[in-house]
């Protein structure tokens, strides 16, 4: 029996050696990719012992913090409505929003070498998380959330000069303090409360593009404010959609300022045709509508439209170009000031290892979209902002847009509001109330 026993012994040796190799594969070769998985809760469990950093608004008000005793810290959000922006930290469902964007600083890893962290682990002295400060203003944010209320939609209020985002509301929201308990309901909710509508939902712009088409037409001198357009009788046909004026004009022929005010589609579709593919593309490019704004949070932009084929539809805002409320707020800031589109910013400063605040510079440069005089001409036509409808998707759902700025000259604030219920008056009211609140001395 001895040859068999020897072979059996060899088999067991090889089998155990094979197991050792496989164990080494997972523990060493695949180590990093396994540990980086979102369903690895170990990194976040560490935050029960070494608290995660706080998130502040620009005035120092707490938006998120770790509370409790050492060994038992838990994340707390005193202002839960901001959840689509701040995101969440969950041992089961990973990170989102600002929590994910600034995780390195908040968790405390950023600024350390890997060996320093390993050494700290051995000593049990892992660095605690550090704080970050957002450009948001909790007072204005509260006003925006209150104004938006139970409606589905989004509000973006920015500092028109610097591009700092002052309020970023997305409704419906969710409560990040009870995320783990309610997760299955939240992900299944057709209203998509986890989605940040202000930065990550692409909406049909519709008439909200009209001020920019007008500005481009003036700047390229293909039209003047005195030119008269025939709008009576036939509506603008776009596929199966018939688009006309929001309010029926008294005359058949109207000027561009009147068309802007009454929300007539035809003149802007015609201007877009006249501008042509190249200049339309230039306009949308200058307004940065064709790429995702760079604010650290997940943002998005639509596929580039076919400028040759759908110039008229694009002018009506019903082409294949879609955009986020953040896009539109930034473009509106350019009209409110001297044609300068500011670079957006959400993260204002992060705390360094020494505890000092280090400002975050915007990742873009400002861009001159219009000449100051063109911006001033269009601005003069929008003393109360611009409200417009858009028809979204195949089902023909109506969206209500409002864009505006304040004060009238040399604006300091710009706002964009979208309501998915299509209530134009409400959108205008929300936007103007927020501008008034921001502009109050």
């Amino acid at each position, binding site marked *: *029996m*001895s*040859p*068999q*026993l020897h072979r*059996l*012994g060899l088999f*067991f*040796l090889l*089998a*155990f050696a*094979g*197991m*050792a190799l*496989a*164990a*080494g594969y*997972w*523990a*060493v070769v*695949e*180590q*990093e990719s*396994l*540990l980086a*998985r979102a*369903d*690895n*809760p*170990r990194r976040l*469990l560490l935050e029960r*012992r070494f608290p995660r950093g706080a998130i502040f608004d620009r005035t120092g008000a707490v938006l998120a913090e770790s509370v409790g005793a*050492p*060994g038992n810290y838990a994340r707390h959000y005193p202002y839960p409505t901001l959840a689509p922006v701040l995101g969440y930290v969950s041992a089961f469902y990973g990170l989102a929003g600002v929590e994910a964007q600034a995780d390195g600083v908040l968790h405390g890893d950023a600024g350390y070498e890997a060996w320093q962290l390993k050494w700290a682990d051995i000593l*049990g*002295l892992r660095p605690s998380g550090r704080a970050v400060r957002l450009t948001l203003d909790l007072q204005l944010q509260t006003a925006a959330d209150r104004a938006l209320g139970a409606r589905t939609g989004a509000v973006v209020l920015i500092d028109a000069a610097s591009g700092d985002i002052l309020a970023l509301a997305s409704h419906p929201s969710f409560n990040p303090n009870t995320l783990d308990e309610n997760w299955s309901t939240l992900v299944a909710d057709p209203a998509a409360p986890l989605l940040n509508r202000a930065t990550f939902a692409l909406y049909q712009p519709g008439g909200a593009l009209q001020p920019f088409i007008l500005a481009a037409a003036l700047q390229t001198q293909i039209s003047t404010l005195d030119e008269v357009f025939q709008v009576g009788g036939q509506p603008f046909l776009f596929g199966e959609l018939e688009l006309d004026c929001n309010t029926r004009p008294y005359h058949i022929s109207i000027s561009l300022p009147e068309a802007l005010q009454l929300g007539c589609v035809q003149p802007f579709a015609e201007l877009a045709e006249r501008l042509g593919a190249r200049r339309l593309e230039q306009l949308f490019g200058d307004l940065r509508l064709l790429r995702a704004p760079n604010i650290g949070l997940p943002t998005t932009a639509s596929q580039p439209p076919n400028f040759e084929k759908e110039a008229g539809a694009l002018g009506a805002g019903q082409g294949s170009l879609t955009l986020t409320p953040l896009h539109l707020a930034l473009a509106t800031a350019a009209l409110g000031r001297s044609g300068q589109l500011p670079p957006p910013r959400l993260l204002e400063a992060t705390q360094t290892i020494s505890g000092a605040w280090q400002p975050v510079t915007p990742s873009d440069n400002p861009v001159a979209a219009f000449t100051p005089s063109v911006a001033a001409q269009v601005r003069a036509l929008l003393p109360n902002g611009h409200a417009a409808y858009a028809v979204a998707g195949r089902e023909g759902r109506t969206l209500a847009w409002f864009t505006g700025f304040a004060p009238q000259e040399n604006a300091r604030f710009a706002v964009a509001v979208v309501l998915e219920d299509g209530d134009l008056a409400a959108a205008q009211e929300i936007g103007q109330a927020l501008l008034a609140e921001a502009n109050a001395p």
Partner: protein
Amino acid sequence: MRERFLLSLAGLFVIASTAALALIPFARANTWAAEVAEWDLRFLFFPLIWLLCALAAYVITNNHLPGHDAFLLPITFLLSGWGLALIWRLTPNFGWRQTLWLAVATLALILTVRFAGDLRWLRRYRYTWLTLGLALTALTFIIGVNPEGSGARLWLGGLAGVFLQPVEPLKLLLVVFLAAYLAERREQIFTPSLPLSTLPPSASSGQAVSRFPYFLPLLLMWSFSMLLVIAQRDLGAGALFFGVFVVMLYLASGRVWVLGAGAALLVLGGVGAFWLFDVVRVRVEAWWNPWTDPTGRSFQIVQALIALAAGGMVGAGPGLGAPTLVPVAHSDFIFAALAEEWGLAGMLAALSLMAALVLRGLHIALNARNPFNQLLAAGLATLTGLQALLIIGGVIKVIPLTGVTFPFMSYGGSSLAAQFVMIGLLLRLSDNSVKRET
């Protein structure tokens, strides 16, 4: 001498890991401040019991079997002490129970060493033993329970909170039966000069004696065992029975085709089971691509692999990892808990210890005096080795997961007791100073 030295090393290891456990609260709070935690006196209890058990086993084995193998006891007690420390760290409630089970298992080992004698009683009543094992296992169909309240009812009892899993002694009894039967009949079954024929001996002319009638009882008893565990949906025991059967047939016959046929049957049976049994399909799919359903069916395996990664080379340190994130880490997945806190170094140590134990068992078989002793020693070593490979391979995604315990380390009283009896038998088989039997 050597055995005493090795056992002392094992004792030092167990005491050191207990000390580490007692320090967990302080290490976590990173302070020596007294208010952080009270010194946990429970951690004095289990190493003490372990020490007493090891000492008793050592003394009695040396008294009765002076020529026994010096490596078996140190490896057995090192692995079970390590397992005990892991279980205490994971779920102290199970720690209490497992400590008591260690005492029971040691008692069983001591009784085996003391009274096993020349093992003729095992050999002679082989049918009785196996039938008893089968009957006990069959009883679970009627009065089977599951200690956790739901799930497969593979246990008997519930008397004063004590549960018996009859499949654990059944494994041992099957090996005894196979060894006894094959030792007696292997010539008739495998004699090369005889042509293969299914005709009864009377019908054949002269030398052409059929092997099949001799093979039949063996096949019958083995099939009963297989059917029983398959009916129980106990995949681990099924795979184990099959593997042990094939290996022991090979050992007895020396025919390589036995291994080939065994492998072919395993593949066929595996494919058949994949289509027939949901539980097999679920396991195979969770093994083949766990990444598609990491929060559902593959949760355990994915979390186990993450635990391996979290352990890295040297591990987080005892008490400092988070191995409780892997479901039922104290039982089938104790290897993942070991990996996280002791790292690759710990895994290599555990694998080496298991391999050494198996090789010692085969070594004992090599030096055994008669075919029964040879087959029994090799069978017990194979059973332990295959079981370790099955569960480790399942945890680290080398093979589909089958629910068996990691020998000596996993939580589970029946399996610990059965394994200690096996070690007792191996100790007995290794002792050549006992008078030659007739």
